[in-house]
């Protein structure tokens, strides 16, 4: 049964990681990355590595999406200003 649990979480990680690579839009990619972080944390916990799971959760659930979306906002704002002045 434990093997089953490892298999399920591994498949979740593989599916989410593939979706993250396939996403083209950075905003949607950030959403997939947030879910990937949670899936990885589950995998690490199942493999008895809660320290790594905590690191992954700490970085992946709020900090990385915030950095990504702030960068997207900055780029969009610059684009809008350029459009206005031209």
């Amino acid at each position, binding site marked *: 049964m434990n*093997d089953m649990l*490892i298999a399920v979480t591994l498949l979740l990680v593989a599916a989410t990681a593939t979706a993250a690579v396939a996403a083209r839009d950075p905003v949607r990619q950030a959403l997939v990355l947030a879910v990937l972080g949670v899936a990885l944390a589950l995998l690490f916990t199942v493999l008895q*590595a*809660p*320290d790594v*799971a*905590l*690191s992954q*959760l*700490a*970085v992946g659930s*709020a*900090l990385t999406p*915030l*950095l990504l979306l*702030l*960068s997207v*906002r*900055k780029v969009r*704002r*610059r684009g809008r*200003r350029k459009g206005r*002045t031209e």
Partner: protein
Amino acid sequence: MSRRVRLWLLALGGAGLAALLFAACLELPGFGGDRHPYGERAVRESLARRTANAVSSVNFDQRAFDTMGEMTILFAAVLGTVVLLRQTRDEHRAQPAPAHVAPPVRRYALITLPVALLVGLYVVAHGQLSPGGGFQGGVVAATALHLLYLGADYRALERVRPVGLYEVGDALGTSAYLVLGIAGVLAGTAFLANTLLPYGTFNTLSSGGTVPLLNAAVGMEVACAAVVLLARFLDQAVEIEENAVGTEESGE
């Protein structure tokens, strides 16, 4: 070198690396076993130094020098971000208007902020006992502060976040780690050797010698580094604007 030769060189190097990795994989212990030569030694050492969390013992005692490198990488990365994302001469700051967040969201942010801060500091303080440590707890504590931006607006966050102090905290945390390392040399053993303090009683807060102190130093460094990093990103995304083309001082 022509493009062809370069590609051949790359293919050769890649094939060599693949062969070596494959050979290494054949020698790995089986997946999921409960015996591992390195694991057994690491656990024995961490129990000898009465550190309940063997991972923390590896990170902050047996391989504390590696952790110093990792911490320095974060420090250097934040330093680089501060330099790159500074306000340049052709940019100005525009104050964002107060934002109106739905009351339940604001209330949630105000209640969760101290709770998340406490949990972050709890994770830092108990690195030697339970999963967690300076890095994880520091990031949680730094994230907690930013609930003020999410639940209200950037002005509210700026009021409780003097960036200068956090920059000083970042440097202090890094130097505290180095000072603890050098203290080992002065005490007559080696750099970052865990011989300064008594090992204490197993599974209590004061166990593990210098592990809790190093954890605290890393926690401070990481929390301050994350706050400074996010401050630069928030400044750029929310406040800093380029001046309109042709005008040196934009009068908005």
